[in-house]
């Protein structure tokens, strides 16, 4: 595992936690707009990071580059695992797709579950894509649903779930594969404040509580305060990077 120089914006002891994902010199331009401008960032094991900033500031582009959904015009994104390091930006489409299946998990604002599938099947499909047989996949999926308070709702379809329940299914789907890093894009954006707090509780407990890394893109200060660290972007650059003393994780 490689080490990176300590970030001067963060306390010294933070730098001792192993890095899971490191971005160096990320640049991404859409037409004449600089979505990312020479941005560098380290994500460490077990931390929760809120990415904030104005619309068009580069939040979603950063998340997509870190997750290998898009490749930067310049710079690198290195994944550190027990098996070594991988420069995600140099992988082919198929390799990045495989990496997203096995190593990353995603929670979207609208849940975006497959509407025809039941809650159980929506979670199990993530494992089936990795080659797990259906019985085994559904067994693990059922355990995740029960752990997230959805026991007894396995056979419900998306339309029969509330917004909060659907997001819990999405959280289970993101983690059932044992993903090391979970990316959440406005995961509570479509929920009321009470449900939002519940969903964030579950998201934090099930990720950072078990040593996984959580990256949340959000506009919501309450959501950001629940995270251990907040990175603020403007015009594709980091303008602040701070740890919260009283964060949930």
């Amino acid at each position: 595992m490689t080490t990176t120089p300590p970030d001067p914006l963060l306390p010294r002891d933070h730098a001792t936690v192993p890095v899971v994902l490191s971005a160096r010199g990320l640049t991404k331009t859409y037409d004449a707009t600089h979505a990312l401008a020479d941005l560098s960032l380290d994500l460490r094991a077990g931390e929760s990071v809120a990415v904030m900033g104005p619309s068009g500031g580069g939040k979603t582009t950063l998340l997509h580059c870190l997750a290998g959904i898009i490749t930067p015009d310049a710079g690198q994104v290195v994944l550190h695992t027990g098996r070594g390091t991988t420069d995600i930006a140099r992988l082919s489409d198929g390799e990045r797709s495989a990496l997203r299946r096995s190593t990353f998990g995603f929670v979207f604002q609208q849940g975006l579950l497959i509407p025809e599938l039941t809650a159980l099947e929506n979670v199990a499909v993530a494992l089936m894509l990795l080659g797990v047989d259906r019985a085994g996949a559904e067994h693990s999926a059922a355990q995740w649903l029960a752990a997230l308070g959805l026991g007894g709702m396995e056979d419900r379809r998306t339309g029969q779930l509330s917004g909060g329940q659907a997001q819990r299914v999405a959280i289970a789907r993101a983690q059932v594969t044992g993903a090391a890093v979970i990316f959440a894009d406005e995961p509570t954006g479509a929920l009321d404040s009470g449900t939002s707090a519940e969903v964030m509780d579950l998201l934090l407990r099930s990720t950072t509580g078990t040593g996984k890394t959580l990256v949340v893109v959000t506009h919501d200060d309450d959501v950001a305060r629940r995270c251990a660290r907040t990175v603020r972007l403007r015009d594709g650059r980091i303008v602040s990077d701070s740890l919260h003393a009283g964060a949930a994780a």
Partner: protein
Amino acid sequence: MSAAPVIPAPSAVATPSRVSLRVPLRLAWMLARPTATGLSAVALPITAFALVTALLLTVVAGGLSFLRWQDETGQLYLALAAIATALLVVPLITLGGSAARLSARRRDERLATLRLLGAPASTVAVMTVAESMMLAAVGALVGILGHLLLMPLVQLIPFRGEPLGGSVWMGPATVALVATGVVVLAAVSAALGLRKIVISPLGVRTRQEAPKLHWLRAVVAVAVVSGVAMVMGTLGSAGDFAVVVVVLGVGFAGALGVLNLAGPWLIGVVARRQVRSAGTPERLLAARQVLDSPKDAWRQVSGVAMTSFVAVFGGTGAALMSAAGPLEGSERFLGDDVRTGVLITIVASFLMVACSVGVTQSSLLLDRRDLYVSLDRLGMPVGTVNAARSRAVMVPLLVVSVGSALAAVVVVLPLAGLALIFAPLSVAVILGCLAGGVGLVVLGLRATRPVLAHILRTPASAL
């Protein structure tokens, strides 16, 4: 530091107690504009309506051209043309209905939202019907142009020993009548498809439960097939050819009804079994997608059911004529002309099936672009998505084509048996038609792959 801007409280807006027709029409225009919906949202239904119009005009023109023959054989040709037209009108209506439903479904979300915002049912109804009619009218105009381009080729088709020639040209009044019929069809389909939005806007927005089709559909289907088969069994004793034609026509209409009744139910039964046994993501996705709406799955492939029917009927008829030996006098071209008619019918059916699958699949992809983009982000391979889409069409297709061919064989059992003995070529025609239909649907599906690739290449507008 500048003070925060003060946002004035909105003043109460006077609302009219009764909404005039102008409001829904203006809303319909706002929502139908390509700038509001994306070009593809209007291009697909317009293309479908254009194809429906062009094919319908060409079929009607061919049929009407037979009116110039006033002799006894001419009457027979007219009867056969009527049957061929009936064969094509049903799948044409299906395709037209699909196009109308397609354009209506594209508006489901927006219309349901309008309902939730308090728009009266009448506003939503007028908007839906008006938008469908606008798209259908544009499609009909394009279709008329397509028909005019096709006509030089149609003129070359030989019947009774000579090309159809100028007799296939229809007057502007007939063309206008047919085009108007397409627009009316769009309006009726849109109005029927609208009921669920008007009745329950939440039902549309949340996609609650998968519908279940009653097993009574199968019972009725078996009863009708048995009844028709019994009637067909008496055909051997009917000496008058006209009686045979009428009985065949009635039998065909009954069997078509049966197909439409039993088809969705059978597809649902097969999909339910496949959901239970699916061991891979693509199999599970495909089976669940079909089970979500067996009627939609049926509509996509019902054209092939009709084609299978045509193949069995046409193959049997042509085979029996060949077996009966050469005819003389004005009927000497009858065998060749029946074969030509059957081929035209099959080609037209295949075209409709390809259009139906292409249009429906493209529209499904566009409607669910957020979902497909999210699946791509989760790491689901494009191959898995395409395999699931393909299975969701091909499994119902095989069920339907084999099932309808078997139903047709049952209906014309005595005649089919004779044809098999005297002219095994008819069997080859049937198998060839089925293979051709399946191949065409595969092509229709493949043609939609670039749509998915485009959606995944430009995800910014989706998520």
